[in-house]
């Protein structure tokens, strides 16, 4: 999809899918609530349309509706969805089944969950093609092996004989693309296909998906919340919010001059930037730490990290690089095999049990999933009140007063005092978790992927709050994340980890400017940029190097 060729397709191609004033409702809280409130969508043959929006915008629901599919508990209440002359709203189940898996196919977000654990990959790849009678099983399997090869899967001849649990997430996602391509459909719906992948894996998957869609001139709806990713894939981008269209424009135009403020806010975290301030006052020091789970393999090898007081140190790396394990060693949840953690010049006892209440108080933690980090049956007052009681012995009026102060610090009003976690949004819940950490009056807060589960605008709010608190109270953050944009936005220092080792540590400016060590280079260059040609350039560059 070089953008020039597809702009032509976008204007002149024959219309493949036409959605007019589509309305969809979902059943929740004992009533039907609108999810999609009258959206139009036109897709021509060979065109790629990016659907972008935050969680709850209705982009997946709309994408699936483009196939005539509604998830259980949803219903289409109005409008028309015409796919190549067939109205999918009025079509029978049998008519739609004849299209699904043959002319329209689907690539889901979680490849691991979307493959049946009981069957071999190649059987699942060709299942639809064979059951629709498009090709015989042996021909379809031959073709699948060719698709595997063109998607750059390792061992394309034999990888199909494996079971889903035997290959990695990135590979599974490519096998799923092969599965979607097996019947040579007219339309593929990609539903957040790279969201669950590491950035370095994401690049490879994006490249192979783009290549194959281009090769067969297949039309596609590409659903994502990441504007930089969609910019690499789509000819046209449609922004959705609250089930309505915000704006639609060719990809290039959208990135250069978005019309709506809301569209701009979709990359708000990228606009945040913190000036680096050096400091020599080390509050927390991790020296020569090796660690393993149980008697298993070592996951940390000689990790050394210095955390200066009142600053933000980010630990970045892919999943499995040992970021969270490092946090567990610092908090005492996982005693190291060797090495030690020094806090304020004193060695911390390796195990949680050995630490004094005061040592525990000074290091607090905030987690990725605010949902699971709070007791769903406790009110905000109880959740924040607990550390006040435990560490500071507060009770009664004094405790209540302090909780209200803390609520003010995290920019929530008094009405939250009696709320349950289920009565708050994701961002509000994460704020409560921050308040709970603050209640202990810690010196260091470890933030483990605290913004990964949140939308961009909400992320921005949380990050701004964290920075404000740092300025005011001099709190030190150890920020664990895989998102480079977040790192850019908040850190003073950066630690790059890979396979349980520290690859590099230094000030942000030092780490983020060339020259880079090999792995840092790979990691940084894999982060999608707001440039529609970024992926193409990257592929060329890497192609040349290889």
């Amino acid at each position: 999809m070089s953008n020039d060729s597809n702009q032509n397709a976008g204007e002149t191609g024959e219309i493949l899918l036409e959605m007019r004033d589509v309305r969809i409702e979902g059943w929740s809280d004992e009533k039907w609530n609108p999810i999609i409130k009258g959206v139009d969508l036109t897709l021509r043959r060979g065109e790629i349309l990016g659907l972008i929006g935050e969680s709850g915008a209705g982009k997946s629901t709309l994408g699936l509706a483009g196939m005539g599919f509604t998830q259980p508990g949803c219903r289409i209440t109005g409008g028309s969805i015409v796919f190549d002359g067939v109205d999918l709203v009025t079509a029978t189940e049998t008519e739609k089944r004849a299209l699904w898996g043959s002319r329209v196919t689907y690539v889901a977000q979680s490849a691991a969950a979307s493959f049946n654990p009981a069957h071999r990959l190649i059987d699942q790849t060709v299942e639809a093609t064979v059951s629709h009678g498009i090709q015989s099983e042996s021909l379809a399997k031959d073709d699948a092996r060719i698709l595997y090869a063109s998607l750059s899967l390792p061992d394309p001849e034999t990888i199909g004989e494996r079971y889903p649990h035997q290959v990695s997430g990135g590979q599974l996602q490519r096998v799923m693309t092969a599965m979607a391509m097996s019947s040579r459909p007219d339309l593929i719906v990609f539903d957040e296909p790279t969201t669950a992948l590491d950035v370095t894996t994401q690049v490879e998957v994006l490249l192979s998906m783009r290549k194959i869609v281009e090769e067969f001139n297949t039309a596609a709806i590409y659903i994502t919340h990441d504007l930089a990713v969609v910019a690499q894939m789509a000819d046209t981008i449609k922004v959705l919010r609250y089930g309505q269209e915000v704006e639609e424009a060719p990809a290039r135009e959208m990135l250069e001059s978005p019309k709506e403020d809301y569209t701009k806010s979709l990359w708000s975290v990228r606009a945040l930037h913190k000036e680096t301030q050096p400091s020599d006052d080390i509050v927390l020091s991790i020296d020569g730490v090796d660690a393993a789970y149980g008697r298993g393999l070592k996951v940390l090898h000689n990790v050394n990290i210095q955390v200066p007081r009142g600053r933000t140190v980010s630990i970045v790396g892919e999943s499995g690089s040992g970021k969270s394990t490092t946090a567990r060693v610092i908090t005492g949840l996982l005693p190291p095999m060797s090495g030690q953690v020094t806090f304020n010049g004193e060695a911390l006892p390796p195990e949680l049990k050995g630490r004094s209440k005061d040592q525990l108080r000074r290091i607090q933690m905030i987690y990725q999933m605010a949902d699971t980090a709070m007791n769903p049956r406790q009110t905000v007052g109880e959740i924040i009140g607990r550390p006040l009681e435990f560490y500071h012995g507060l009770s009664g009026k004094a405790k209540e007063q302090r909780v209200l102060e803390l609520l003010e610090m995290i920019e929530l009003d008094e009405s939250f005092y009696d709320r349950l976690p289920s009565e708050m949004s994701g961002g509000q819940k994460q704020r409560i978790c921050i308040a709970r950490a603050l209640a202990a009056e810690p010196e260091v807060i470890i933030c483990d992927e605290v913004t990964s589960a949140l939308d961009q605008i909400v992320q921005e709010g949380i990050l701004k709050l964290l920075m404000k608190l740092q300025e005011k109270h001099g709190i030190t953050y150890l920020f664990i994340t895989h998102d480079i944009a977040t790192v850019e936005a908040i850190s003073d220092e950066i630690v790059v980890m890979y396979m349980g080792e520290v690859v590099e540590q230094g000030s942000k400016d030092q780490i983020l400017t060339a020259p880079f060590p090999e792995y840092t280079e790979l990691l940084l260059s894999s982060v999608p940029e707001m440039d529609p040609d970024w992926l193409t350039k990257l592929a060329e560059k890497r192609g040349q190097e290889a």
Partner: protein
Amino acid sequence: MNLIIMTILKRLALGVVTLFFVSLIIFSAIQFLPGDFGEAVLGQAATEETVAAFRRELGLDEPAWRRYLDWVGAAATGDFGTSFSGRASSGVDRSRPVVEMISSPLKNTLFLAGMTAIVAVPLALFLGITAALWRNSIYDRVINAATLTSISFPEFFVAYVLMLFSTLWWGLSANATGINDADASILDKAYMLILPSMTLTLVIVAHMMRMTRAAIINLLASPYIEMARLKGQSSLRVILRHALPNAWAPIATVIAFNLAYLVVGVVVVEVIFAIPGAGKVMVDSVASRDIPVVQACALIFASVYILLNLAADIIGIVTNPRLLHPK
């Protein structure tokens, strides 16, 4: 593959250990029964000397641990000792080896269990799968209500109702008195056991059918099921090919549980239909304090339980591709 064999061997070893503990429990439970075995067997008229002699002869005067070791050691070689019954205070000894006493009833019980299983298990699977396929339909509701009703009645009630209908209206005059005749063929025996088998089927189908339905429906919300639908697969194929292969473990557990019940829990049905089966032997021997028979039956029943659960575990393991095809 080696991983699987290792796991299965581990489970087998665990089964043997379980059996050992069960034997301990059986033995000590019987030690705690009140009263003197000698007196109970010989009757109140027996003199103290005869009771003492009797106890000595049976080894009841030995310490408990010694008797336990003797019993377990012999049982391990298939020798369950000699029955207490058949002895009289007059000194005449018509007692028989336990194995001889229980082998024929046990065969009858296993025959009835096998015959019931052949009908009930496929029937339960069929009903469960179709109920899951047409879930929340009239069909589903009728099947659910019907099986729930049949499991809610006590089995003797189901048995008598069946007897009433079959004998009065269908002229089916099956009874199991001739089951031990030497010239009865398998078909004859099966005919004799039709009613008890139907009773047991009605009792066990509900549990297995409901588990099959629940296990399948539980999986229908999985992303891979949605993916199968989006590949245009028919509902039946989605259930048979995509849901069922991942649902075997819980279904097998419930089937094993019910099959075990067919062997060890059928005494009521055996009594009603006058089938000379293992359950009846055990109840009779408890009444007459025939300790070797009680112990033997308990141990055999325990083994059946352990074996069937082991089989369910193994099915759970071999249908799990993560274990069958390790990374």
